[in-house]
């Protein structure tokens, strides 16, 4: 028999979703060679050389035949080296070098992985979305690189077979030496075994900023910190993921999926159970921040999905980058449209921004004189547009902590107890907004503010006085109400009291000090 054909199931990724790809191999006597068709990109086309070498280095023969490999469906673009392993299996089967045991069902076993020339199986990007898609398509066994096994192991009802060499795959399929399946890792167990990167007990002083951070976390409010260089803005921001409520399984899956596509998961790392903290540099381009590029990849805002996006030196970001943040801040999703590709990436994150009060950084400092003219300061602040500022509820000044206080021993309140209060406040909000599609106070819009932010008459009086005496805009007025709602939630009060409102006013002060 001259014409031999084999079929192997694999998966590709488009956007955040996987799709099945059938690797068909056709071998015929003729001029020796290997051709890959079905819209492969360069890295897929190059796989023929890797496959060739890997097969020989696994102790099998490459027969001198003319081999055609088709990646079906032929109208979707295939990217990346994850098809190396299924192609190798297909070629071996087509050549009769590999005769699968009866246990191997090519329709319910998916294979993916990159091959090195020695036949070792390398980790790939996007394993999680591929496994999710595989499960949806009725696949029962997945053969994938060992380093990707942990991230895939959180999906129930599918057997994960981690491999580290092509030889293992061959022997498994021949039924000679079955691969032990990866055991399931329960989500709860993963979640309980992590320590946050930064703990609030390490922060000395900063009583005001700590409280602001707690309020921001409790209501999901975006936050802007203004302070002199070295006042600890970055340190404070890093503590935020640790006090936000723990991720649910769905959230963890969404976030891990995006990180998986970008290849940003730690090798051997499983499902992400801590909220991501992304801190792009201020030289970031629009595409790197919101996603895009020729083949549409998620940007930092999507990597920060369900976590914290920290923009240090906010006015140094280019204007177009800051404006591009508006859609994800508003909708929690980014649409990336390119000529060849389009994708939607989830990007619901908490924005934490930090900036100096003026170009030299020392405006308002008691220790150093500011060298900026009023005009320079105004130009610096004007780089942040009103619409962006409008989406930031809490503005907080951070003052440098005196050395004497830093040297004092004794830890401050740890993140865990702050997180507990935040969790309670979030539960209150979940119950209040059940069935409305909202889940935190930060999402309230005009009408909802009127409906949910009820206050005592005393509080109403105070608000009027504050707006008047501090010359606040209508815009600031709305933000104050939302933040006051969160403060009342932290205090377990259904009606906003005067003291809650008075505290909320302190988080808008920059309006009058810097932007008036």
């Amino acid at each position: 028999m001259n014409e031999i054909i084999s079929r192997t199931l694999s998966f590709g990724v488009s956007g955040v979703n996987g799709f099945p790809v059938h690797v068909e191999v056709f071998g015929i006597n003729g001029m020796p060679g290997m051709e890959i068709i079905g819209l492969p990109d360069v890295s897929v086309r190059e796989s023929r050389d890797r496959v060739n070498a890997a097969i020989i280095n696994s102790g099998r023969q490459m027969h001198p035949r003319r081999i055609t490999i088709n990646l079906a469906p032929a109208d979707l673009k295939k990217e990346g080296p994850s098809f190396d392993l299924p192609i190798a299996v297909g070629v071996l089967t087509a050549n009769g070098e590999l005769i699968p045991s009866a246990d191997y069902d090519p329709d319910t076993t998916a294979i993916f992985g990159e091959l090195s020339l020695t036949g070792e199986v390398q980790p790939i990007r996007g394993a999680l979305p591929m496994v999710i898609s595989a499960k949806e398509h009725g696949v029962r066994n997945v053969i994938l690189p060992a380093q990707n096994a942990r991230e895939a192991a959180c999906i129930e009802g599918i057997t994960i077979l981690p491999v580290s060499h092509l030889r293992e795959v061959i022997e498994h399929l021949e039924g000679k030496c079955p691969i032990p399946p990866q055991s399931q890792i329960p989500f709860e167990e993963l979640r309980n075994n992590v320590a946050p990167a930064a703990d609030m007990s390490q922060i000395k002083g900063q009583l005001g900023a700590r409280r602001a951070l707690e309020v921001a976390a409790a209501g999901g409010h975006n936050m802007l910190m203004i302070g002199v260089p070295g006042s600890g803005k970055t340190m404070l921001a890093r503590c935020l993921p640790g006090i936000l409520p723990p991720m649910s399984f769905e959230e963890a899956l969404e976030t891990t999926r995006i990180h998986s596509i970008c290849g940003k998961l730690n090798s051997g790392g499983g499902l992400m159970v801590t909220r991501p903290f992304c801190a792009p540099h201020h030289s970031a381009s629009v595409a790197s921040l919101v996603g895009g590029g020729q083949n549409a990849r998620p940007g930092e805002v999507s990597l920060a999905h369900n976590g914290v996006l920290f923009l240090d030196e906010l006015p140094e970001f280019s204007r177009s980058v800051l404006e591009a943040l508006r859609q994800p801040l508003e909708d929690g999703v980014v649409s990336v449209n390119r000529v060849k590709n389009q994708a939607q990436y989830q990007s619901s994150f908490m924005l934490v921004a930090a900036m100096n009060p003026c170009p030299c950084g020392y405006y308002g400092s008691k220790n150093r004189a500011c060298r900026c003219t009023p005009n320079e300061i105004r130009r610096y602040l004007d780089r942040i547009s009103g619409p962006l500022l409008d989406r930031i509820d809490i503005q907080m000044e951070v003052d440098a902590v005196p050395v004497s206080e830093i040297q004092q021993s004794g830890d401050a309140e740890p993140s865990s107890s702050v997180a507990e209060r935040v969790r309670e406040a979030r539960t209150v909000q979940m119950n209040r907004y059940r069935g409305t599609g909202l889940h935190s106070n930060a999402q309230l819009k005009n009408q909802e503010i009127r409906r949910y932010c009820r206050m005592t008459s005393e509080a109403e009086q105070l608000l009027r006085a504050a707006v008047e005496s501090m010359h606040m805009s209508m815009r600031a007025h709305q933000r104050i109400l939302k933040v006051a709602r969160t403060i009342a939630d932290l205090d377990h009060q259904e009606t906003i009291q005067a003291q809650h409102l008075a505290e909320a006013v302190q988080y808008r002060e920059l309006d009058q000090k810097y932007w008036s």
Partner: protein
Amino acid sequence: MPKCFEEKVFCAWMAGAMLSSSSAQQALRHFGGAAAVYAAVRKDDPDLKEIFSAQELQRLTGLSSDRHLGTLEDRLNCFSISVLSFLDEAYPVVLLNYDDPPCVLFYQGDIGCLRSDRTLSMVGSRRASWSGIRAAKDIAGELSRHRVQIVSGLAYGIDTAAHQGCIAGGSPTVAILGCGLDIDYPSGNAQLKKEILLHGGLLLSEFAPGEQPLGWHFPYRNRIISGLSRAVVLMEAKIRSGSLTTVQHALNQGKDVFVYPGDPASEQFSGNRLLLREGARYFTTAGDILEDMNWLDNQAEVRQNSEGAAPESSLTPTEKRILNVLKPGILSFEQICAETGIAPREMMSALTMLQIHGLVEALPGKNYQKKVR
């Protein structure tokens, strides 16, 4: 046919030629007005050679084109700039007592301001510390409530604070510029210029319209700042500060100099300390100056602070505690928390209440200060 111009245009023409004060005075007296000087220049009058140096004459001739005069006229009219020569009645004669008086002055606003006998100039660094600016604003405000006019230089920093404080206190304020009145300099103070005029103040310059703010103009015009005031108040200056030229002028003119002590540890006030060691008058409040100048009125004549404040008796114990701690000066949020032992969330509410009552003021850098009454 030469175009006809008003006298003020010829005054501006003379001011633009950088004449020495004595020769300009002599020419104006000799010919009886700027227009006559112009006519003499066009005619090449032989008397001119005796009054002006060759360079001065050359500059006057060079600027005597109709086109140049037309530009000057447009600028004067566009910006409604009025002109005074020392021959005019409204010219502040006090300046003639000192060296190098300007023979022509340009102004916007109420020239009547210069008749007041209660004028003080307040000067200091353009890059002043926050505490210096606060003090300048408060002291200028308090002086202004005692019907004292503040003269300053419209620069950033202390000058701006002095003008603003004076406006807030209700008295007119006088700004002496170092460039033509039509030039937007310093550009951040355009709004302040408008406010000075709106509140009955005066913008004054010896430089003709169109003159750029050149470096030497500023120390030079400082002699007018000191000359127009009864005493000079120095708020904040380093040892090599330009503000000290105003002090030097004041001493040459035989005027008192009041020096604010400032923060003893700060480099920013090193010039102040030097002057105090040399025997300048020491003051910490507006009252000190008023007493020394013998300007203390009975309370009825003093304008009241327009911002109403709640009586301290209606405050909660927490608020009273904060006010007590704030007595010595500016404190940061952390310091107030540390000294009172009040929890941050309670502290934030209390501070808002105190701000609404007008008892406490929030400063950049999360600092707070008791409002000066």
